[in-house]
């Protein structure tokens, strides 16, 4: 069952002197019940904007966002519709989303007031939430500064869980944590998802962690989705040249001295995206058509999707370099 569905979402920002800048230029994404979906891409690719649109923190210029089949209405001055309480978000820096002057217990109880009116019931639930995320029972009586970075992120997750959500969108929840705290938190997220049938949309630039926890991965480049697929096959055989480049750039901590591949060029200005395929100026396989026509995201064998002229709809997935070599005589790959 699909719990979160983004269709052709466009997010625009007003930029002085440049008119409107499209941070997200028509991106689609679905999250199934109990699924962990990873959203990866370089900074500036629009993944955080898409996340904000997904929870209604900003209003898409076009496209629809559906949560459990209902429209996600952007947050305004009026109260948020009751149904949307089950769609929650966790941010990168828990210290800026937690109130430093209030005890943890009180902050967790905030999320409960709408659901549970009895004081005793709230106290019991706060203790349960602490236990659920692996915090000591005494945590409720303490302040945010008394906790480590990893523990604060647990508190932020507990607060999201207070609303009994079915979907949590997490924007870089593991960044700025040490390896061990990252491992603890990654385990917690996988456990919560499995035990509570919770769906997670995990935005991260840390590809190694996403590979480990996500069931499905969406790769975003300059405001559009370039590849979507089940995690393991996507990692073993990336179909879009951009996914291929991202994976090749990840260092290996195995002591063998593997030198990661650098992707030449820079992410272009989203205000002036390249013609045709947005990735073509940095793509090693680009040919004439790539400069003129933007490839649509098409379905391929094995539940995979890619937006690349090297991967025709319905075809068997193939390594981009191999496909380019086959096509070279016909299309004039440079």
């Amino acid at each position, binding site marked *: 069952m699909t719990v979160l569905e983004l269709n052709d979402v466009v997010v625009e920002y007003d930029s002085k002197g440049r008119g409107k800048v499209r941070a997200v230029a028509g991106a689609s994404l679905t999250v199934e019940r109990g699924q962990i979906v990873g959203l990866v891409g*370089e*900074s500036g690719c629009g993944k955080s904007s898409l996340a904000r649109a997904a929870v209604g923190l900003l209003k898409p210029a076009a496209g629809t966002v559906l949560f459990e089949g209902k429209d996600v209405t952007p947050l305004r001055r009026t109260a948020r519709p009751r149904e949307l309480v089950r769609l929650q978000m966790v941010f990168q820096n828990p210290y800026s989303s937690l109130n430093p002057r209030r005890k943890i217990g009180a902050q967790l109880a905030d999320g409960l007031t709408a659901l549970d009116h009895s004081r005793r019931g709230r106290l019991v639930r706060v203790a349960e939430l602490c236990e659920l995320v692996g915090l000591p029972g005494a945590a409720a009586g303490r302040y945010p500064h008394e906790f*480590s970075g*990893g*523990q604060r992120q647990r508190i932020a997750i507990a607060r999201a869980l207070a609303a009994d959500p079915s979907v949590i969108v997490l924007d870089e929840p593991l960044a700025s944590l*040490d*390896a*061990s*705290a*990252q*491992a*603890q938190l*990654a*385990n917690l997220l*996988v*456990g919560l998802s*499995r035990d509570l049938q919770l769906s997670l949309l995990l935005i991260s*630039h840390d*590809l*190694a*962690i996403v*590979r*480990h926890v996500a069931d499905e991965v969406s790769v975003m480049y300059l405001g559009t989705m370039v590849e979507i697929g089940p995690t*393991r096959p996507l*990692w073993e055989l990336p179909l879009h040249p951009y996914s291929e*480049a*991202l994976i090749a*750039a*990840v*260092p*290996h*901590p*195995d*002591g*063998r*001295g*593997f*030198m*990661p*591949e*650098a*992707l030449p060029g*820079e*992410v272009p200005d989203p205000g002036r995206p390249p013609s045709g395929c947005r990735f073509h100026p940095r793509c090693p396989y680009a040919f004439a058509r790539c400069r003129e026509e933007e490839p649509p995201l098409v379905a391929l064998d094995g539940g995979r999707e890619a937006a690349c002229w090297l991967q025709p709809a319905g075809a068997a997935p193939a390594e981009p370099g191999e496909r380019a070599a086959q096509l070279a005589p016909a299309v004039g790959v440079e």
Partner: protein
Amino acid sequence: MSLLEVEGLRVRLPMAHGLVTIVDGVAYSVEPGEVFGVAGESGSGKTMSMLALLGLLPEGAVVEGTVRFGGRDLLRLPRKQLREVAGRELAMVFQDPMTSLHPMLPLGRQLTEHVRLHLGLGRKAAERRATELLEEVRIPDPQSALHAYPHQFSGGMRQRIAIAIALACRPRLLIADEPTTALDVTVQAGILRLLDRLRHENDLAVLLITHDVGVMSSIADRVSIFYGGRIVESGKREDVLQRPRHPYTRALLDALPHPEAARDQPLVAIAGSPPSPAALPSGCAFHPRCAYAVETCAQEVPSLVAMNGRRFACPVDPLRVR
């Protein structure tokens, strides 16, 4: 002779309750043209031990030990002479290039300041050197870049510029503190390749401080692992990362997601969190989190023992126990 030789380095910083030991008895050496990796979690003392070399510690810090660099003891040099050495032969690059680049000055000014001050070059010669430097770190169109400001460049380009400035006086040692942490992997790979090329072409030694074992694994020749202000293990990259002898190194590596790990297999996190320097556990600082700890671990600080070209501070050897 080693380019840099650190012995018995101890750093104490003034805190609310008096002096707190942040770095305790650290020793290592760096050879010319070598990348020496220093890894550890936040608060392990890796950054403070580097700042101590450059005399950049906060007011009231107490530093002991010796730091031999090019025949001098940096810790005993008068302030003015240390500045001379630290400006010319030693250079440093930080995580966020915007902290070392001046936002209101064009790059030309920032690149020439160094060489004019330390090498005594004239304006024309300094500008030629600045253009060379930008070429060396692969900034497109270096001539016009001299007139541009830092905000006109992306994060990766800014870090390249910071490296160019650090290289201005042809230092023999570059201290790089988390130089790629704020960057995307695609850009990070470019910086790692740049550092690797510089050490090969210019015989530049790099002291690379990072929390990312992957980054260290890609370019370091030798590595050392910091925990609780001490080095717990050091040796050749492949030895330490493939056959760790200290339980902490082992645990740190086990916590990383592994490409071949089975789906749904949880990561092996280290129990608890890293200790605060102000409340370091007795004996081996890692013992409360250690799966191999025995009674004596809580009582004695294990000394760093040399064995087959590597050193580790643990009486229990996880390789043997397994």
